[in-house]
């Protein structure tokens, strides 16, 4: 298999794609390039993989690993029209499953299979982000809204008869290969295609209601000035002086909610909930990411928050949470030994690994006796240093 199967036009387009990204970051062009080879062949063939590898200076395994990860890269020849029926929960209960089953039987093909005449590839899709129009299906990714089994059969029959039914929203249909050119980042050159497809009623419902009742947001003045830092500082100083002149106590009281507002990930429903949540947050610095925290999270935080809410909070440490290397704490500089040298995605990962003790010799992290001891020592040191450690030390002890 050689890469000579690709046309000069494709090669020229490949150069255009690569030029969109920084010169030393050409690998960013890989996803669009895979769309591009699919535009010529209808799927990502071994030749397509080799082509991408060649133009990016990668090996075929690197390209193949990426190509097989993404649903939209097809691994065998496709039809001219890809019919995707959403069978995720909402469309499913509204009738999407019936639409899919009917089409599958009508066309005599299953998921990711193509009709014998090469016209239609059928697939069931996950949420297509049009739940207000459910159940939906797409043809080459343009929407047919509110379909039922009979309208869906009508659409595929028209396609097989050589027709081009007009999507409910989106542009007039093109072939899947033509669509792949657009996915590679090229404009839709068809006259009027960009203008096709106005908003449907569900999209506009809230707006129409507002319009009917004359509702708009009051007080909008596009000339509201943007305060400069000097002005803001002055205003803050004045406010502070004024507050101090009044009495000191309310200043602190009013400062508290502001701080809470900054900590997005600490939504506090009621004061009673917020208070006991704090110790849980304090333990976070010692175990900044899920990976290192995973073996020590059996100790439940002492609050009555939903576990999902609590986990979501720990996923998003805010400025108030002193995670090592958290944004806003301290920025690693290139001068230090732990900072990434090559400035590559992998070096970011390397920095992460450096900040989170990895597992060695195929054992789970922390299994090695030395590591356990080091953890304890570090935890103890942490206690002495910033008081963030006690809960952590307890947890580690509990693990032993």
């Amino acid at each position, binding site marked *: 298999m050689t890469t000579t199967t690709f046309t000069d036009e494709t090669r020229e387009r490949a150069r255009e794609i690569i030029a969109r990204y920084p010169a030393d970051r050409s690998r960013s062009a890989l996803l669009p390039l895979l769309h591009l080879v699919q535009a010529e062949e209808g799927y990502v063939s071994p030749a397509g993989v080799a082509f991408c590898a060649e133009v990016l200076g990668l090996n075929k395994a690197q390209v193949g690993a990426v190509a097989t990860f993404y649903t939209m890269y097809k691994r065998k020849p496709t039809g001219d029209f890809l019919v995707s029926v959403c069978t995720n929960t909402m469309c499913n209960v509204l009738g999407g499953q019936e639409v899919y089953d009917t089409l599958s039987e009508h066309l005599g093909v299953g998921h990711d299979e193509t009709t014998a005449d090469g016209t239609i590839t059928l697939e069931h899709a*996950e949420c297509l982000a049009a739940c207000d129009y*459910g159940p939906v299906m797409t043809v080459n990714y343009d929407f047919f809204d509110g379909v039922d089994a009979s309208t869906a059969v009508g659409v595929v029959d028209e396609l097989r008869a050589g027709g081009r039914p007009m999507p409910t929203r989106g542009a007039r249909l093109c072939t899947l290969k033509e669509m792949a050119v657009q996915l590679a*980042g090229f404009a839709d050159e068809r006259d009027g295609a960009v203008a096709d*497809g106005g908003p449907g009623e569900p999209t506009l419902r809230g707006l129409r209601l507002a319009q009917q009742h004359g509702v708009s947001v*009051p007080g909008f003045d596009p000339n*509201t000035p943007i305060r400069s830092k000097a002005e803001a500082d002055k205003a803050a100083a004045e406010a502070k002086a004024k507050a101090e002149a009044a009495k000191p106590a309310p200043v602190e009281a009013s400062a508290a909610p502001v701080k809470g507002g900054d900590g997005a990930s600490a939504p506090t429903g009621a004061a009673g909930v917020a208070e006991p949540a704090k110790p849980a947050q304090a333990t976070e610095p010692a175990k900044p990411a*899920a990976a290192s925290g995973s073996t020590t999270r059996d100790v439940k935080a002492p609050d009555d928050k939903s576990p999902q809410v609590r986990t*979501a909070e720990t*996923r998003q440490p805010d400025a108030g949470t002193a995670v090592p290397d958290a944004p806003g704490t301290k920025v690693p500089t290139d001068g230090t030994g732990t900072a990434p040298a090559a400035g590559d995605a992998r070096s970011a990962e390397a920095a992460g690994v450096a900040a989170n003790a990895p597992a060695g010799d195929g054992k789970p992290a922390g299994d090695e006796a030395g590591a356990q001891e080091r953890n304890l020592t570090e935890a103890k040191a942490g206690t002495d240093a910033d008081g963030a450690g006690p809960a952590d030390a307890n947890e580690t002890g509990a693990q032993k």
Partner: protein
Amino acid sequence: MTTPRPETVAKLTPVLTKRWLSPDAWRIGTYEQLDGYAALRKALKAHPDDLIQLIKDSGLRGRGGAGFPTGLKWGFIPQGDGKPHYLVVNADEGEPGTCKDLPLMTHDPHALVEGVIIASYAIRAARAYIYIRGEAVHAARRLRNAVQEAYDKGYLGRNILRSGYDLELVVHSGAGAYICGEETALLDSLEGFRGQPRLRPPFPATHGLYASPTVVNNVGTIASVPPIVLGGADWWKSMGTEKSSGPMIYSLSGRVVNPGQYECSMGVTLRELLELAGGMQPGHNLRFWTPGGSSTPLLAAEHLDVPLDFEGVAAAGSILGTTATQIFSDQDCPVYATYRWLEFYHHESCGKCTPCREGNYWMVRVYRRILAGQGTHEDLDTLLDTCDNILGRSFCGLGDGATSSVTSSLKYFKQDYLDYIEGRTAPKLSDKQLVGAH
């Protein structure tokens, strides 16, 4: 269908959606007549730090689900560090139930482009990317068209509006992977790798795209920037609640008379939203709903009056998420709904970490067994135990999200599970769908 009361209609706050009624708002000429690029002109005259402060003052919080304060995120970008900075817009909309970003990009793409330019100027980025979901082809068409128009008019490229500021903007289509909505997976994907999440820390603010300082923001967040620049922080805060300021696009789907997009002041309740949407469909009574997509724990009819802002929903034990309110009735089965969501998480798990990859795989099989009438009481313990081993132990939020509907449906609707197990509900799946489920 009933007409909503005036006080309920007053909750509507058309800000991000206001241009959608103009059919040509996606063209730059129309956009410019509707306040378009006025915010950019204004912003370029201000100091970047003042813009960051403005966004901080506005209290704007991320619209992608996590609700992180946007100004704070921008402020994390180290300045004067000699590294290139990047702005990456997360337009990989795919959370089940969520459908607010696609209409915005389709019908008002310049709002996003203008927001991108202002945000990039504020964080001193010379390159910005919009990573748009691959399947969102029409939105991408309009967006690419808008970017080209903006280049032609001098809003992008070299020396924007003679300010001396340069910005390159690329619209980058994904290829069908829900996980790429996770910000670090998105960055890996944008770099040409498999979309798998990275270990954090380091955070994108210091080691993001190409290991450089990067802000990753949702479409709705960035599109909120121009109106804030124009109207000011105080005006923005006149909407919403104290800690959840501004308007939010609530996406109603399911068993309501008029599903659709309703941009309301944050803190509106489902009861009010249902009133706006004409109520439940005839013959349907509200049974369960998601406040913000399938990754947020289900709520029930008793939560009709929960204020839908970040704090209110958290206090009710769920997460505001993307305000994708999927509404199900007494004719829908919470066990089946959860099963379908799990099929989704199982399919979309990137495979990097074991809890998510294996946990979802096995939970799908347990659900199939229950729905085929062959479940046991122990299965329910197995489900909860599996969730316990996924939540907080998976590498990123995808695994956490998968457990939401399982634990919440077991909490509110355990009887539905028992009815399948004890034979009171007819099996919903047949034996042939049970391959590998034992």
